[in-house]
């Protein structure tokens, strides 16, 4: 009982945190982010299971997380109005080769960040980009201009 409650509280706290820290932070996974991820996992584990080393305890925690995850994805699927709240919405960052400054600033994206993401998709110049969209996952997707 106690484990399930603690797991639920921590789950929603992390969910909220991930929603508010901004997508840019989520998409990049540099060495430092990887270490932070491990530290975060360790800190959370202590709070959730504390001194419970039992297999039953692990079953309770893992099942609760799985159920909450399915519950959120079900809500996301069934209730369109909640979709923007649960997953967020994409943002157009580049249109017709031009960076939309306000949108990029809002997501704390610099020109260098965008150019780097473009290079990762084999695009050398942002001028070749018709659309760049910051997806809800934090990934930048690029659609190139059609070449005649």
């Amino acid at each position, binding site marked *: 009982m*106690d484990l399930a409650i*603690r797991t639920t509280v921590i789950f929603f706290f992390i969910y*909220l*945190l991930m*929603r*508010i*820290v*901004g997508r840019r932070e989520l998409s990049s996974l540099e060495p430092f982010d990887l270490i932070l991820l491990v530290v975060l996992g360790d800190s959370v584990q*202590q709070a959730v299971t*504390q*001194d*419970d080393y039992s297999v039953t305890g692990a079953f309770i925690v893992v099942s609760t997380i799985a159920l909450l995850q399915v519950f959120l994805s079900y809500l996301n699927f069934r209730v369109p109005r909640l979709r923007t709240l649960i997953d967020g*919405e*994409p*943002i*157009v960052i580049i*249109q*017709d080769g031009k960076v*939309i400054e*306000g*949108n990029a600033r*809002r997501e704390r994206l610099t020109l260098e960040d965008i150019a780097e993401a473009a290079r990762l998709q084999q695009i050398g110049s942002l001028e070749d980009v*018709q*659309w760049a*969209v910051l997806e809800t996952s934090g990934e930048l997707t690029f*659609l190139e*201009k*059609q070449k005649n």
Partner: protein
Amino acid sequence: MADIPDTIVLRRHRDLEGRRKDVWIRRGLLTLVALIPVLALFNVFGQRPGKPAVATSAARLQLYAPTRARGGLLYEARFRITARQELKKAILVLDPGWGEGQQINTIEPSPTGEASRDGQLEFTLGHIPQGQTYLLFMQFQVNPTNLAWRRPANVELFDGNTHLLTLKHHLTIYP
């Protein structure tokens, strides 16, 4: 204009119509998150010890212990008894709140006797000559499932059957 990607609505996803306030909601929530470590720095969640004291003409009792702790934490409570007059049989009586949901790992020096006084924890410390100090250390660990909001944890000092003083204390345990 080139084809707009499917499901992208320019008014919403490029011009951010109806989404202007989102960023402020996000900043507000982030402020709330930032508030957590700030409150922690101000000891809202424990476990910085306080030093409350109470004195009478017979004795002075000072407690060094936190009033706020969290599940699983180890902490120390130190009871400093200064005899202003000879205490033939000093007895420290703790509210049950001290034992509720907490491990009492160590009591040093070991009391000469332990008993229950109407549900309270009674520790017989023995003789304390006038002007001398008796320092009792107790080490606790909070049970992870323990939760408490200002649970009474008063401390009383007796000399035999004579009540000398009461030190008001309480414990708040966060999950």
